[in-house]
């Protein structure tokens, strides 16, 4: 079938971000002084993309021979990824001064990884989801090693690539088995074969292998091992992008693919996913306890949060789906912000990332300390911050679905996590500063962090603003 103009219009957000990235490469060659304007240019591209996503918001349709969705669900995530991208670029403005990195390449890679995320969340076909995943992953492999004169960065990049390639094998094999059993890779058409297809062992095996591939991307235990090393080795803002955008995109595809088979009530599948969620909550939080490096701590915290979100998704009821989307938004914004604050303190690659370096931050810079505290409180799930509302919904959903044991585990591990989140706040507010490192906060950075802080507080006090949007999305999908 020949694509129509409407098809292109439907995926306009994706096209615009891609075009922005490509133009930047071209402009780099043509204009000498383009380096100065590259951040603004990227942000403009992302803003225009948001504009088109909003235009497409109301009409749900499939384009390019049923390969991609657009509208509602897809638009929601497109907007989210663009916001994450803008925040990441704004926050990176400070570190770009310190590192001798190629600003334009950095921007291009971030933009293309966002294209990948968008395709993942809009995928109506296993193949398009796979393509999105690879676009995103390859950018991440490169970004992980972007501080290329650092051994730790090189190591992170290579590790991520090797393990990623390994996991992709499982993913593809899973897709192949699914195609083999039902004769299609289109998500909607596959769903028509349920629940009969679920009784086919090979189909179930295909789903499981697909699950393992995605579990690697969202870092579910025991497929999480790469994450602390990669987050530590990558430039801090890139870690933030991976933790927020990368994880959210993988979850968006996860919801697209698995919400139907999970809802069909296949016990094997539900039990496996529940155990993965439980392990993630336990391992993430317990390993987080002893971390001294702030980036590693956030990496383990990210693993734990993967577990929480999965608890909501397993519930497969309205509460769970809405809660998961809410939590994804909140967690993304929070972790971008938290990594952002870490990036500001780290004025030389890998320095000042120890928890001791946060001693007395409240005396040195009230704004950063306050923002970081808000993020930490939200990650713990303390009202009135948004994390509380999200967690509440996820756990309430699981109780409705009689998964009380997961909720008890979630609450207990949350208590454990209290220790390492609060420890950071204690260091920031109740200790005297130890070292005299200069903190330079640019205006771009201030805008980004203020935005994240406000969002976290706003959605905590007034969650229905976001929930009404989420409810609207699920009206159709």
């Amino acid at each position, binding site marked *: 079938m020949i694509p129509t103009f409407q098809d292109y219009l439907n995926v306009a957000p994706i096209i615009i971000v891609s075009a922005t990235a490509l133009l930047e490469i071209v402009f780099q060659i043509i204009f000498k002084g383009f380096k100065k304007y590259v951040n603004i240019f990227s942000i403009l591209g992302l803003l225009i993309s948001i504009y088109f996503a909003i235009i497409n918001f109301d009409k749900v349709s499939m384009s390019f021979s049923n390969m991609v969705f657009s509208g509602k669900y897809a638009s929601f995530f497109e907007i989210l990824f663009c916001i994450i991208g803008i925040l990441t670029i704004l926050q990176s403005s400070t570190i770009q001064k310190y590192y001798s990195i190629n600003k334009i390449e950095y921007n291009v890679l971030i933009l293309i990884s966002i294209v990948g995320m968008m395709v993942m969340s809009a995928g109506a076909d296993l193949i398009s989801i796979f393509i999105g995943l690879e676009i995103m992953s390859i950018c991440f492999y490169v970004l992980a090693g972007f501080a290329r004169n650092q051994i730790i960065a090189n190591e992170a990049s*290579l*590790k991520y690539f090797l393990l990623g390639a390994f996991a992709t094998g499982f993913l593809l094999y899973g897709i192949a088995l699914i195609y083999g059993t039902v004769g299609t890779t289109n998500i909607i058409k596959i769903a028509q074969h349920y629940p009969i297809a679920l009784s086919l062992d090979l189909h179930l*095996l295909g789903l499981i292998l697909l699950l393992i591939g995605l579990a*690697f991307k969202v870092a579910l235990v*025991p497929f999480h*091992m790469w994450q602390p*090393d990669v987050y530590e080795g990558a430039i801090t803002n890139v870690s933030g992008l991976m933790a927020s955008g990368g994880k959210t995109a993988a979850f968006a595809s996860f919801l697209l693919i698995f919400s139907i088979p999970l809802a069909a009530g296949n016990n094997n599948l539900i039990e*496996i996913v529940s155990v993965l969620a439980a392990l993630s909550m336990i391992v993430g939080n317990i390993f987080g*306890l002893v971390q001294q490096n702030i980036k590693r701590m956030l990496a383990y915290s990210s693993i734990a949060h993967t577990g929480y979100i999965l608890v909501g998704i397993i519930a497969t009821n309205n509460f769970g789906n809405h809660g998961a989307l809410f939590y994804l938004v909140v967690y993304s914004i929070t972790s971008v912000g938290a990594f952002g604050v870490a990036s500001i303190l780290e004025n030389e690659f890998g320095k000042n990332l120890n928890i001791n370096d946060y001693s007395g931050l409240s005396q040195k810079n009230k704004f950063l300390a306050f923002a970081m505290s808000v993020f930490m409180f939200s990650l713990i799930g303390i009202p009135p911050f948004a994390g509380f509302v999200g967690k509440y919904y996820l756990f309430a959903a699981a109780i409705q679905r009689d998964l009380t044991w997961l909720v008890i585990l979630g609450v207990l591990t949350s208590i*454990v996590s209290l220790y390492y989140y609060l420890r950071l706040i204690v260091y920031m507010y109740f200790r005297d500063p130890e070292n005299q490192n200069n903190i330079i906060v640019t205006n771009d950075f201030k805008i980004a962090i203020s935005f994240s802080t406000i969002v976290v507080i706003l959605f905590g006090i007034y969650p229905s603003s976001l929930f009404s949007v989420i409810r609207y999305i699920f009206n159709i999908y």
Partner: protein
Amino acid sequence: MVNYINYTSLILIFPLIGFLINGVFGSKLKSEKLIGSISVLGVSIPFFISSLILIQMLSSNIDERLYIVNLFSWIDVGSLKINVSYLIDELSIIMTLIVTGVGALIHIYAIGYMHGDKSFWRFFAYLNLFIFAMLNLVLADNFLLMFLGWEGVGLCSYLLIGFWYDRNFDKSTTADAAKKAFIVNRIGDFGFLIALFLIFTNFGSLEFVDVITQASVLQSGDELLTAITLLLFLGATGKSAQIPLFVWLPDAMAGPTPVSALIHAATMVTAGVYLLARTSAIFILAPFTMNVVAIIGITTAIFAGTIGLVQNDIKKVLAYSTISQLGYMFLACGVGAFSAAIFHLMTHAFFKALLFLAAGSVIHALHHEQDIYKMGGLKKYLPITFFTFLIAALAISGIPPLSGFFSKDEILYKAFSFGSFWYWFFGFIGAGLTTLYMMRLVYLTFYGNENFDDSIKPHESPKVMTIPLIVLAILSAIGGLIGIPHALGGTNYFEEFLEPVFKTSNSQLPFVFENITTEYLLMALSVAISICAIWYARNLFLQNLKKSELIKNKFSSAHNILVNKYFVDEFYEKIFINPIKKLSDSFLWKWFDIKIIDGLINNSAKFIQYLSSVLVKVQTGVTENYVQIFVLGVTLILLKIIL
């Protein structure tokens, strides 16, 4: 025509903005005038808007005067749906006008009173926050939002009582007084909260309109309603300082005087009365509770009135007077005369705020002297203060045609016709007591010898303080004219206006034939006792001070009991506080908390920490190991499917 209801949200936003500006930037704003003006605007703009709403309400049909303004959904989980939405009706608009109107005057006064204080901005930030919370309390359309305001005013009260945290108060500190207020209020709040749980579990909603509709189907005397109303009333006794929880209010005088006027006289302490009025349709179905309310009210009125007779601190006398007057309002509620209670609430807000502010002016002039035996003869130095104080004192004494006469008289008449002779009788005695202790203040402070230090040259307060006094004096004088009883040939506009709000509760009242002769008689008697009390006070405290000493000595044991406030504080200390302290000290703290709770937590924390330090060794950093663990995971999952 503009629909002013649409601006309801502004009523709440302005005080909040005032609080935020002064709270966040206050320490940087150098000008007291600027801070004060921001704060005053934060209260007076809402007053202006609510006046417009009142005017609009008056021009619309009687059955179209109830509006619900829904701002946003606050909590929406399962069957619990709570909106941040506001109920505008006759009752809430009156309360809003009192809170913002009297509030604005007190804000203006405070600019002068707090002049030069090192934490000027903090004071005004708290005041605005208080107004915000109080408006949430009176405007909320559901119990939970009301509770938010209820707790908010409690917090502000705590912050403001302890505002001068470095000063001493009585034998302890202002911080202790603040804590006392907070803790005693917790007991009442506990009752309120349990009532909310009961309401939600039984009616499945917390919205006033919903709950009242559902409750009105139930039988009068239903046990559930009795329980709910008793618990709500426990909450009211905490906030409105009634027996048994009144002990915090006298200590609350540790706060700056404008605070005593605004929070501990005119507005916050009347929240309990408002709560009863708002839920009158439920209370009327619980006759047992109504009796309890009336008895507690009248007992408190007499009890606090007698203590007020012998206190020497000008603010403490006023505090006990407040408790006593609140007792009258509860008496009115208890006999079902809710509109009379609200009427008295309003006039009381005028004259009691005025009394406090005038007392503040005296204290200001005498450099923070509060003992009335160290005052005297201030009439010629502080003419405006004296004159306004006198008007307020006469108003509270029920001298016609000042406002207190109409409102108190209505309560006494209703107590007689709906309640019993004894309610009226004790109320009548209480009225005499009120006049006696008020005139004692007047004579000892403004007449007689100058007992203050020679070094003090008292002078009248600045205009910013006297103008609010004058405005309040006018209100205290004529505020009662909107509720002239039929017996005097007038029309009780106030009662008519509130009629729709109390329609349900009024319909449950016994029909009483209006007996004009009785009404005249009661009125004459209460005026007579007031005049006698004035004469007696003049005799004792102006002309013949020795005689009062004589009486004091003759009844020294009784006097001793009164001076020590019936030893209630000591009683509570012995019966409740000490045993709890002992139990906490020996068992709950040293054994249960340290050994069991701390032990459990510390040891499990140690265990997890240990576990963590061991397990973390799995993270070797070697890629092969990572792949091995990955494959192990895959194998286990596949085994799970196969088996």
